[in-house]
């Protein structure tokens, strides 16, 4: 009998109108990496929130080390050895690594417990412990560094050390590779392997790993559990399954993992960028003299680790950020300093990187979001009055065509899953005649089914004669879709190559600044 670190039985959690978890059974053995797979809205987050004490189940039981327990809040979860590394890091950028790690569990100089708030922090012994943890598991962190100066991969290591510092035996990693380069992801897998190794007569740590990248699942998992529609649809071992089988389990049908796509037939240029220079929010140069060209009927993929100027590039092309130098031309028209509306009216569609910030008004109904940038002109408005029938008809049609899963067109978009939110944006942007499509991280955080759909749509637009600029941190996505690949590093395009010449290794090195 294998020792179980954690077991949940019959977990059911209902929200008005939705059953987020339905009689879910899940267990985690000591010293294993257990992957939790599932589409967005499958109930992974709900289950993890229940385990971490962020919400209470309506029914069901939870056992830690064989003992029945009610995890009522995260503090209890932490004190019982559960640590969670969230997708969005919970770090204070202006504090150092050691300060971040001890935040909330500060150790104090001995004999100063009196007047606790005024006593001195014992940073020295904390630093020593962090160093020994980081050596033990190969988690390289500099305790004295400020978090704001660290690259994303290092920040993630800080989060892991933070959990270990609190003596976590169970680690929940929520989509940890979403922000990493392929090389950084490999490093993380090594760390995970080190963590689950037994130490002496003690078990290693146990890890729940949430991801949607099927390659990673097979590379790192000991066991795999798949959730769909709030239920467990199956458990398996990596040796007994394939990517296609896992994808089919997640989605509930056969899924095409490679994008079917014919050769591109590029024609005249639609988007021309010359020596573009853009500043970021801190007024530092983020885009440093970028020149590129996207032609009608081709997909240009911009690869690169996040934070190398891609966001600023896209924002300046779409009018959200004013460049400080260079030129942008769309269909031969100067748009360097044009407003977002003018750029839209020229026939540009924009799938923004941050769908909740720029792409949607979450509190507004689906039908309003489907006319977010066309609401002011016919057929949706006549003489400054909104034509409600047309707005509703448009929504009903797009919901059907793009298979947006929503209870009704009146539902607030905040209640939709990430995939359906993204489909709402895609439906809106594709519902008018377009010449240029700028898509930034169009499938981030989405499930296999939605990714398949959106990839298909991008290729279809290309074949319909649209020029497509695809910016993505997912190398697989770039390689599957792009006809030409540009690599962006520190604000510059360091290389442009035809897709046939690109390999993962070559792109990975260019993305890391090695040339």
């Amino acid at each position, binding site marked *: 009998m294998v020792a179980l670190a954690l077991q949940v039985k019959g977990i059911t959690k209902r*929200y*008005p*109108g939705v059953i987020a978890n339905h009689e879910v059974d899940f267990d985690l053995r000591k010293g294993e990496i257990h992957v939790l797979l599932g589409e967005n809205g499958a109930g992974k987050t709900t289950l993890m929130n229940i385990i971490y004490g962020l919400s209470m189940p309506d029914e069901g039981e939870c056992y830690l080390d064989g003992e029945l327990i009610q995890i009522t809040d995260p503090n209890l979860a932490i004190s019982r050895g559960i640590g969670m590394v969230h997708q969005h890091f919970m770090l204070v950028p202006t504090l150092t690594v050691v300060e971040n790690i001890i935040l909330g569990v500060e150790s104090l100089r001995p004999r100063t417990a009196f007047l606790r708030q005024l006593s001195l922090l014992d940073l020295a012994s904390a630093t020593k412990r962090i160093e020994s943890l980081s050596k033990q598991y190969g988690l390289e962190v500099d305790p004295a560094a400020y978090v704001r100066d660290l690259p994303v991969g290092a920040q993630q290591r800080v989060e892991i050390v933070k959990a270990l510092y609190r003596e976590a035996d169970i680690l929940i990693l929520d989509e940890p590779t979403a922000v990493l380069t392929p090389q950084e992801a490999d490093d993380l897998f090594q760390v995970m392997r080190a963590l689950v190794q037994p130490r002496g007569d003690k078990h290693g740590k146990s890890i729940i790993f949430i991801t949607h990248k099927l390659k990673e699942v097979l590379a790192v998992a000991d066991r795999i559990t798949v959730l769909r529609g709030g239920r467990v649809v199956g458990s398996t071992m990596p040796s007994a399954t394939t990517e296609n089988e896992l994808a089919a389990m997640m989605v509930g049908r056969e899924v095409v993992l490679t994008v079917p796509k014919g050769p591109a037939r590029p024609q005249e240029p639609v988007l021309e960028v010359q020596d573009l220079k853009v500043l970021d929010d801190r007024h530092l140069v983020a885009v440093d003299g970028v020149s590129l060209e996207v032609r009608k009927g081709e997909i240009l993929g911009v690869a690169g680790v996040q934070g190398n100027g891609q966001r600023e590039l896209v924002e300046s092309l*779409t009018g*959200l950020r004013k460049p400080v130098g260079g030129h942008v031309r769309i269909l031969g028209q100067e748009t360097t300093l044009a*407003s*977002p*509306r003018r750029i*839209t009216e020229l026939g540009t569609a*924009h799938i*923004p990187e941050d769908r*909740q*910030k*720029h*792409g*949607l*008004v*979450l*509190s*507004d109904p689906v039908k*309003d979001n489907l006319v*977010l*940038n066309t*609401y*002011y002109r016919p057929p949706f*408005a006549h003489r*400054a*009055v*909104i034509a*409600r*029938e047309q707005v*509703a008809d448009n929504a009903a049609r797009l919901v059907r065509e793009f298979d947006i899963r929503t*209870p*009704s067109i*009146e539902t*607030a978009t*905040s*209640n*939709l*899953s*990430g995939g359906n*939110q993204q489909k709402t944006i895609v439906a809106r942007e594709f519902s008018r005649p377009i010449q240029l499509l700028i898509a930034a991280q169009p499938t981030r955080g989405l499930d296999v089914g939605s990714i398949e759909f959106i990839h298909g749509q991008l290729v279809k637009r290309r074949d319909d004669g649209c020029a497509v600029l695809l910016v993505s941190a997912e190398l697989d996505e770039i390689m599957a879709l792009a006809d030409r690949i540009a690599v962006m590093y520190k604000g510059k395009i360091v290389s442009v190559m035809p897709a046939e010449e690109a390999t993962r290794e070559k792109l990975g090195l260019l993305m890391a600044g090695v040339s």
Partner: protein
Amino acid sequence: MQSTSRRGKAPGAVRASILGLTRTLSIPALAVLTALLIGALIMLLSGGNPLVGYVALFEGAFGKARSLSETAVAATPYVFAGLGIALGFRGGLFNIGVEGQLFIGSICAAGVGYAVHGLPWFIHMPLALLAGCLGGAICAGIPGFLKAKTGAHEVITTIMINYMAIYFTNWLVTGPMQDPGTIVPQTRRILATAEIPAIWGAYRVHWGTVLAIAAAALVFWLLWRTVLGFEIRTVGANPDAAKYAGIHVGRNIVITMMLSGALAGAAGAVEVLGLNHYFAPSFSIGYGFDSIAVAVLGKSHPWGVVASAFLFGALNNGANLMQLRTQSPVYIISIVQALILMLVSADQIVRRLYRLKDLPKGNLATPAVATSESALGTGKEAKS
């Protein structure tokens, strides 16, 4: 918010929208009830009989034709000013300057009311009202412009402009606009052609109350039926998405502030043209500030604002009879109003008290509180 549609709907959707409405109304209703109960306790402690007190309150507010008329009179400025605040909330702006805009609006209306001669009433009265709206709009447009151009927070600038507006009107009525026939700081009486007439014989209730309700309908139509309303709501709910959608956010902020100020100005103007017939600085009993509570209680919805304005009007109006019968001071009503505001803003208290089920994130329809939070820069980022 708008839940009715002419086209056919699944029965589930109808049920959901009814359920949604009940949910939206349950918090304000329970907040009012709780506030009245606590008010009763305070009355009891101060030696009055709460039962007698509340019966008197009700009688004072609704008991006779005259009390009904007075309740309507008291509610009218709350409706206008509350609409102004609510419109601001919808556009993501917290216009605390309503009090000042009210003062400017009423002195503008009074000025046009007594100084312009020889016009028939159907031109003079609307002109005076329009002058009031314009005054309020300009007074609110300045902080709007400052926010759009420099990012200066409207909460700070409108508070500052409140002082300027109130003292400016004080100076006007002790100086250039003072009624020469008196030493009291007030303007001359407006001409009969500028007056908003009474509706109903000898009672004070005037057509301004009807105008206020019409204004609510207009605001509803503006917000949910027009292109401008779509833009205001989009900027209020998510300025980044508004920019993405091609909306000129800065211009929109100025327009929203000016509309909000125009409604506040109308509140002051109607008090002058319909009720007092002259301007004196003492006319406002803090309408501008109370109407923040009115808008929050009304969930920033025009009809919600009308309902809560009449509630506040009734409370204020009935308080006198309550004091007469029970010797409980009228200020108990101010305490009740403050409690209502507190309970509606901190709706978790009400939820706990009445064991209302928590809704999942993002499902909660509390636009007023949510937008005022984000206007103050403390809004939590929406997560799905």
